[in-house]
């Protein structure tokens, strides 16, 4: 009968389901968080699995998500583009360390201007995004670009509509170079922008910029490079004009004083050094100090140690910037000092 046949097919479906549910469970460690380093973590995970068979599953649900999940202990480690302050770390019992670096690059859409031809500096960028500079041929911009013909065109600032580490780094820089920005807008993964329109993701910002004459936006370095966007050079703290490339990012990191930063809380924007790119940033990993699952924690640390040692070339191929060697040593020392198993013994020992 009709109904009996239907019941039989539901039961059959449930039986199939049951067999699916008993699928193979792989040796897996998991992490979640920042979107910025996702491609390079995925690359490392693939190579690591080929080498050791351990699946390291990282998903980019956003820095806020990463912090939430590591606090809820639903993942083995969290990742955040925005470092947590030492007080917050202590409150949650977490340790953080920088893993990989990159930069944020201003991109423009001006006819006749080639990539790298336009030169700006921090205060001017802040004024543009505050809405104080209305046209491209404003004297403030012309002063930085002698010999370049700037059109009489309205400036259209573009920003990231979704909360992101890129916005955090960018607004951090603007807050450092412009007291008015710091006062009016501030520094966070998501802010109240005085002017402009918001695009979703790097893709959205790039799309909006390329279609709006006179637009200026900011994207991750990898993005600007892969899509051959028209980037602008910046005048850094020392007064020299630098182009965004991995040398400039590493200069910013090398000149930073990590040893004096408790909890590695250090923002790489506006760093000293004549080659330093002013809008550099690092992405951080978060783990609990007291580990209830020491085997999983050891696997996580083994993975990151392997990445520090073998992952640099892969990172650079994807336009990311590896940490300098001295910082790596500091990080690994902090693992031994802080991450303990239930018997209060360190899980990680340096080779």
């Amino acid at each position, binding site marked *: 009968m*009709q*109904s009996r046949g239907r019941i039989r097919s*539901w039961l059959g*479906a*449930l039986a199939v*389901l049951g067999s*699916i*549910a008993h*699928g*193979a*469970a*792989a040796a*897996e460690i*998991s992490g*979640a968080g920042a979107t910025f380093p*996702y*491609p*390079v973590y*995925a*690359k490392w*995970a*693939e190579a690591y*699995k080929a080498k050791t068979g351990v*699946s390291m*599953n*990282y*998903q*980019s*649900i956003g820095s806020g*998500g990463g912090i939430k999940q590591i606090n*809820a*202990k*639903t*993942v083995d480690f969290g990742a955040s583009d925005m470092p947590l302050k030492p007080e917050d770390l202590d409150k949650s019992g977490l340790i953080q360390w920088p893993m990989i670096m990159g930069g944020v690059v201003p991109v423009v859409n001006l006819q006749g201007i080639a990539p790298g031809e336009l030169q700006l500096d921090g205060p001017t960028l802040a004024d543009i995004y505050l809405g104080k500079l209305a046209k491209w041929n404003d004297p403030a911009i012309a002063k930085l670009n002698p010999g370049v013909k700037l059109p009489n065109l309205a400036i259209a600032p573009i920003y990231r509509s979704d909360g992101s580490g890129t916005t955090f780094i960018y607004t951090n820089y603007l807050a450092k170079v412009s007291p008015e920005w710091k006062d009016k807008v501030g520094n966070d993964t998501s802010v109240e922008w005085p002017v402009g329109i918001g695009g*979703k*993701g*790097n*893709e*959205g910002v790039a799309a909006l910029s390329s279609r709006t004459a006179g637009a200026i936006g900011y994207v*991750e370095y*990898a*993005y600007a*490079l*892969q*899509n051959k966007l028209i980037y602008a050079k910046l005048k850094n703290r020392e007064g020299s004009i630098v182009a965004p490339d991995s040398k400039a990012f590493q200069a910013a990191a090398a000149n930073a004083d990590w040893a004096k930063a408790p909890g590695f809380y250090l923002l790489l924007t506006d760093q000293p050094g004549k080659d330093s790119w002013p809008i550099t940033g690092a992405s951080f990993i978060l783990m609990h100090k007291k580990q209830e699952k020491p085997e999983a924690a050891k696997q996580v640390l083994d993975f990151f140690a392997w990445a520090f040692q073998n992952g640099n070339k892969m990172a650079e*191929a*994807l336009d990311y910037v590896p940490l300098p060697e001295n910082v790596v040593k500091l990080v690994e020392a902090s693992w031994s000092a802080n991450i303990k198993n239930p018997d209060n013994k360190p899980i990680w020992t340096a080779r």
Partner: protein
Amino acid sequence: MTLYARRRAINLAYLALSWAATGVGLAVLFLILWTLLRNGIPALSPELFTTVTPPPGSRGGLANAIYGSVVMTAVATLVGTPIGILTGTYLAEYGRESWLAPVVRFVNDILLSAPSIIIGLFVYELMVVRMGHFSAWAGSVALAIIVIPVVVRTTENMMLLVPASLREAAIALGAPRWKVVVDVIYRAALQGMLTGVMLAIARIAGETAPLLFTALNNQFWSTDMNAPMANLPYVIFQFALSPYADWQVLAWGGAMVITFTILALNILARILTSGSDRNP
């Protein structure tokens, strides 16, 4: 103008607008399909279905994401459809008997418009936090919660529209009420209920937000329902918005797979049930 001429003119206007509306609908469809095909065909290859999602720069496919989406969509449909049909049945058959029906109907309609991310968060609190990890079960539950209101609404609608004469004839023949519903009403309303189920499947096949905090995603091949599982919409979301050309091609390929699989499913379902809706 004579009355006749005016009626004819109005009729002509109506008909023209109907044709135009269909034309617009089909034009939009073809525009979108054209974009899908143009960008997605380069991704079509056996590799798409046999290798797992790669990091940028490596060769790969969408096998784990396709598997995950198929499994989670299937579980969600198998769980959500019976619940939705039975609830819709209660609303249609016993709706006038108590206060329960109007309240369920109202709440159901409110949930129809729930942003899917909220449903995902609810299941996160309910299952993921309690279980201590992400899982494909949680993802399936979140999708099932999206299926239920759609199926309830369409089931109730279609059952109420079955002509009273059919119902009365069955009762006159001495059939018990449950048999009237199961053998007569369901069969009469089948095409409409099927539309509801198909619309629900089409909706959950393309949803990212509810899976974000439940099934998460998985870079590797996994058939474990108790662990994070890859799914197509999230992979498409991630890859399409990345700067890497090989990832973008895969994203479009994935979008094509979703769209045409639903199309095939729809056609199959219509063919399988086409005999049962002949009007007397």
